[in-house]
């Protein structure tokens, strides 16, 4: 400090007024002229960056900030060598950055409350997660119908387990009406009527084909229904295909079972855990050799090993900076949908992330034992085996477990782009608007993550 003052004191004698005028022309110039080069540069950067930001944003009101900063800069010159309080400039600059940032991000807190209706339509089904359901006994009866008519269509009548269904006419074209009568159904019972394509696709017959058509059978177990053959199902004028009309009676039994969606969730979470485990194990194995090459204390010895170190570090940094999700999109394109591309993406990301963390563990080890083992005449491999590995095993294990934890969580999002696992199902349900299944998935993921977190914390605690 004393040296600085000694150097700058003759310059500080320069007139503050002239300096202020200089700063009025170019911010920071006056400070520089007075000998405070760093301060001059800083003031210039602050004023110019504020000006550039407001010009870019283009809203007139915000020009007040660079103007105020410009004045502050003149004031700063007048008050040299003490200068104007820096916090004043900091508050001005930050209020501009934050204010413009707020507007650029289009923050609209009201939007959170305005769409209560929409929120309720999502939250209400989410209160009833679709994981278990009452046990049901589904009985289905169906009859074949030709679309369009061949020259000699068969009769559209079928009898299954005492239930006879008849469709009239025997064959139809799209848009025609068809009459269905059934006898021998369970009486007074809700019955779903659906139109089944040759490939097994189910088309609902309610309003706009978006709702299930459900009718009650009468006291004798008879049911009569007339509907229009849904449009857009006919392959061609000439090509005759067998469609089916299906009647389904769903009987509710006592007790509960896992719903069909619940089974998908279990399958999905199992896939997720498996792909996270495989990706972690494979990633750890790949990261191990790389981490030794990326450890400065082992590789800093001579120019050759140092350049390998730089290469390994660069490789790890590049791959670590690419989100696993992005990698998954690329691998889905290469190998197709399913858990496999998800696993590949996670493996690459895990290799890079663990490689970096491992190498940092290696760099942080106590150099004493290395020195001691080297002094016994041991070679490089022996030094690594006896002085390095025993020091790093606990941290490596803890990091790997922690990584598995992370991978389970990130593999749920990887499913969103087709990388398999529960995320894949979750994404479908969000698109279909099946929020009961969505909330069941959320709960399952949360439970699994909490359990994993608990056990990995326990395991890591044991290692030290």
């Amino acid at each position, binding site marked *: 400090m004393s040296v600085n003052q000694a150097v700058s004191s003759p310059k500080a004698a320069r007139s503050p007024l002239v300096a202020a005028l200089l700063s009025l022309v170019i911010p920071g110039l006056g400070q520089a002229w007075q000998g405070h080069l760093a301060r001059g540069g800083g003031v210039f950067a602050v004023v110019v960056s504020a000006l550039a930001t407001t010009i870019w944003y283009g809203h007139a009101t915000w020009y007040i900030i660079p103007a105020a900063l410009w004045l502050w800069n003149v004031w700063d010159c007048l008050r040299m060598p003490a200068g104007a309080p820096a916090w004043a400039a900091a508050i001005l600059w930050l209020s501009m950055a934050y204010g413009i940032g707020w507007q650029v991000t289009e923050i609209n807190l009201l939007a959170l409350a305005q769409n209560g209706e929409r929120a309720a339509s999502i939250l209400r089904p989410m209160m009833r997660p679709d994981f278990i359901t009452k046990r049901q006994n589904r009985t289905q009866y169906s009859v074949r119908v030709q679309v369009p008519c061949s020259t000699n269509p068969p009769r559209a009548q079928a009898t299954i387990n005492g239930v006879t269904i008849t469709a009239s006419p025997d064959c139809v074209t799209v848009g025609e009406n068809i009459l269905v009568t059934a006898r021998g159904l369970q009486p007074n019972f809700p019955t779903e009527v659906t139109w089944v394509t040759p490939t097994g696709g189910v088309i609902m017959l309610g309003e706009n084909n978006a709702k299930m058509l459900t009718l009650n059978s009468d006291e004798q177990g008879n049911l009569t229904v007339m509907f229009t053959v849904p449009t857009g199902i006919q392959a061609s004028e000439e090509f005759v295909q067998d469609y089916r009309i299906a009647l389904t009676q769903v009987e509710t039994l006592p007790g509960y079972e896992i719903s069909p969606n619940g089974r998908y969730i279990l399958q999905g979470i199992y896939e997720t855990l498996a792909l996270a485990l495989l990706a972690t194990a494979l990633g750890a194995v790949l990261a191990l050799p790389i981490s030794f090459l990326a450890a400065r204390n082992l590789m800093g010895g001579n120019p050759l090993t140092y350049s390998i170190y730089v290469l390994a570090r660069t490789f790890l940094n590049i791959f670590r900076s690419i989100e696993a999700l992005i990698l998954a999109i690329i691998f889905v394109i290469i190998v197709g949908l399913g858990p496999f591309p998800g696993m590949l993406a996670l493996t690459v990301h895990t290799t890079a992330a663990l490689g970096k963390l491992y190498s940092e563990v290696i760099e942080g080890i*106590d150099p004493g034992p290395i020195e*001691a*083992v080297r002094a*016994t*005449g*041991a*070679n490089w491999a*022996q030094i690594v085996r006896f002085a390095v590995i*025993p020091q790093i095993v606990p941290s490596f294990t803890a990091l790997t477990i922690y990584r598995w934890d992370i991978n389970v969580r990130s593999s749920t999002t990887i499913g969103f782009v087709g990388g398999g696992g529960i995320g894949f199902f979750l994404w479908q349900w969000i698109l279909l608007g099946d929020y009961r299944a969505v909330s069941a998935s959320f709960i399952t993921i949360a439970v699994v993550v909490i359990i994993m977190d608990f056990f990995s914390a326990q395991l890591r605690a044991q290692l030290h």
Partner: protein
Amino acid sequence: MLRIENLTKVYPTGTVALKDVSFQVEDGEFLVVIGLSGSGKSTLLRCINRLIEPTSGRILWDDIDITAANAQQLRLIRRQIGMVFQQFNLVKRSKVITNVLSGRLGYANPWASLLGIWSHEDRQRAMQALERVGIADKANNRADALSGGQQQRVGIARALMQEPRLILADEPVASLDPVLAHSILQYLEALNRTDGVTVICSLHFLDLVHRYATRVVALKDGVKVFEGLPKEIDRARFKEIYGEEAEEVRATAVEVG
């Protein structure tokens, strides 16, 4: 006989740790190196087995030029030079016996040793070394479960595994309770007297120097300022080595048998 000739070490930072240091150590000597912290004692010891590469000068050991040895020769030289450290430098999480066995790495089959396979002789030798320093019962404990004094004894046992002709001891008692200093130094003294191992040891406390050294070399700012017998270090010499403001502190008030 070990001959240090014009040894100089300049670190990449520009620090001159050793400046033109020359002296000789006869076989069977207990040479003590003294000097303030930062005077170059540790650098000197590490230059002898080239844990630190000297900038210039030569180190000759029975006419073998250590400074000119290639990597393979250097390992063969190092395995005959035991080393004991101020911070013990044990692998804390490994067992005591593993730490001791690591002293044998220079002799062991490289592939077997990587798998952790040791010959029966080596294991016996390790147990004998531990018995010699009085902690055979701790063989299967983790190294960090031992007290400081016990850890340094493991360090000595590790050096014993090398069947050393020379032991470099870098402030072996500086991290220990002063009352333990004699117990550690007596093991080194016994090696020196009964096995004829040459010992080069850096020390802080003058009373320990008087008690154990057969000869003394003093360093100040990397320059050798004294070489002679311990009894020649009088008050004037002491001030010369440690500076005007220094006062002598005794390691222990009680001499241990």
